[in-house]
């Protein structure tokens, strides 16, 4: 049982990070518009995040040093600062999107306008960061997020034409109704919803808080190789659901309630209840990750004390950053800005900023001074370099495509 529970960091990271509000939006929107044609972007994202998180986890276990600590050390104060600003901006957008996502999910269950839930959600997120033990948090949210597995069950319950779905996925062809720029825009969104920097900050900083050492590398790997594939499975299931039900009717997803319709068709009320419970758990998990990551990045860059192992009074500036980010996000959401739009923008900016955190991790993972005999081997370096290329390509294309397609319209 201990082994099972010890993978919850990975499950929380993945269920929260892979399947967050960004993925709920990107997967179901693309499912409805492109069918399974963009499934390859989810798979590519899965491989990307496994490569990236595995390197970051190994760096954490062997050097006991956090990501931003090392980014500053290797890139110097100026480039490091540019990096910090970009990452903090993306962390903050993500945090906002996730808080909005929790509120939207609760609106689905209660029919009470999401704006009323936002202050409560922000307060809950902050209180958990402030008071709840790291392990308790990762177990509760990681396991609760697994309620989303109901979407996999729903896919089977709908008895889809499997040949049709697989052929869509394999041919990866653009539907006639869609343009090439929006095809690539959504491919990058899907990729970015899987490979998000905040997941990596959270995962590696969490590893340091759990005192990973060289002996824990197998646990680190179990976390990566169990957690993220579950996340990808959930993302593909959500995509399949809208591909099966909404695409033939030419209904586009622009509200979270449309994501629940296929599940209600397949499994009725109980299905919806489980799905909404899963939505709340995974968006809350992601909000926590993003809140922590904002604090991690700033505190680690400046060398301040951070984390949950000591009482807040011992890491005051870390907690101050988390607090300010959470409540500033709340205030901006209360202006009535659309959380779904914030989510879409957060994905694109996240893609654009990705190489900034990816490159230093790759550099350190292949540096024997930090990694000793566990330095990146030939396979890891090959995969690392291939993905550096992919990540950079996505980063360069992200913002021009956003402008060209007017946000994927």
């Amino acid at each position, binding site marked *: 049982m201990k082994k099972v529970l010890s993978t919850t960091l990975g499950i929380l990271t993945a269920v929260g990070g892979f399947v967050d509000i960004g993925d709920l939006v990107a997967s179901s929107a693309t499912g409805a518009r492109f069918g399974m044609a963009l499934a390859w972007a989810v798979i590519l994202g899965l491989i990307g995040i496994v490569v990236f998180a595995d390197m970051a986890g190994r760096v954490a276990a062997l*050097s006991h*040093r956090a990501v931003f*600590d090392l980014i*500053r*050390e290797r890139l*110097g*104060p*100026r480039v*490091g*600062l540019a990096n910090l600003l970009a990452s903090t901006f993306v962390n903050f957008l993500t945090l906002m999107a996730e808080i909005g996502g929790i509120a939207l999910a609760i609106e689905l269950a209660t029919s009470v306008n999401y704006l009323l839930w936002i202050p409560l959600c922000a307060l809950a997120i902050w209180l958990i960061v*402030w*008071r*709840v*033990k*790291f392990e*308790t948090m990762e177990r509760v949210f990681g396991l609760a997020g697994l309620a989303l597995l109901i979407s996999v069950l729903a896919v089977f319950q709908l008895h889809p034409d499997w040949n049709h779905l697989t052929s869509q996925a394999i041919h990866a062809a653009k539907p006639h109704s869609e343009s090439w720029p929006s095809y690539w825009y959504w491919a990058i969104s899907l990729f970015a919803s899987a490979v998000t920097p905040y997941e990596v900050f959270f995962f590696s900083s969490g590893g340091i808080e759990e005192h990973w050492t060289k002996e824990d590398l197998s646990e680190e790997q179990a976390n990566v190789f169990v957690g993220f594939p579950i996340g990808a499975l959930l993302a593909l299931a959500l995509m399949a659901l809208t591909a099966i039900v909404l695409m033939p009717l030419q209904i586009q997803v622009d509200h979270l309630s449309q994501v629940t319709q296929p599940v209600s068709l397949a499994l009725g009320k109980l299905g919806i209840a489980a799905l909404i419970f899963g939505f709340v758990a995974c968006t809350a998990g992601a909000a926590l990750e993003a809140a922590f990551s904002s604090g991690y990045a700033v505190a680690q860059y*400046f*060398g*301040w*004390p*951070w984390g*949950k192992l*000591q*009482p*807040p*009074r*011992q890491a*005051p*500036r870390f*907690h*101050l950053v988390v607090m300010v980010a959470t409540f500033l996000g709340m205030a901006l959401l209360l202006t009535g800005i659309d959380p779904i739009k914030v989510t879409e923008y957060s994905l694109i900016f996240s893609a654009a900023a990705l190489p900034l955190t990816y490159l230093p991790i790759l550099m350190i993972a292949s540096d024997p*001074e*930090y990694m000793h005999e566990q330095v990146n081997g030939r396979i890891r370096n090959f995969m690392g370099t291939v993905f550096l290329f992919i990540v950079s390509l996505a980063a360069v294309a992200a913002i021009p495509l956003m402008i060209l397609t007017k946000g994927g319209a």
Partner: protein
Amino acid sequence: MSGRIIDAGYHLLDRQIIDFDSKLGGKVDDVELTFPQDGSAPYISDLYTGTGAYLSRIAPRLGRWLESIAKRLLQEEKPNVVWFGTVQRVQSDIEVSVSVNDLPTHRVEQWTAQNIISHIPGASSASE
């Protein structure tokens, strides 16, 4: 110290400072060399850490201004300094023999703790 060459730019600058208790105490933001009067080889006398020293590197004018304010407020000649003699170990982080509470960066940390964080319930106890 013998047998190991330390590159000040690479092994000292921007490294994490930790105390004997492994508590985090800011980054090495600058390094001071002293040239002895008798003409012997220069040596590293001090490490600098904290906002003023940090800003001096990326925005020199702003950094100097902040440093001069800190000097006047704290009535200290070198408010940001960690004497190099306290350095115990130079690895991927720099271990010093004093407590973080006595390091310059800790002033702002303590100020934040006392004036903001400790007013919120639950600030002093560990998580449950």
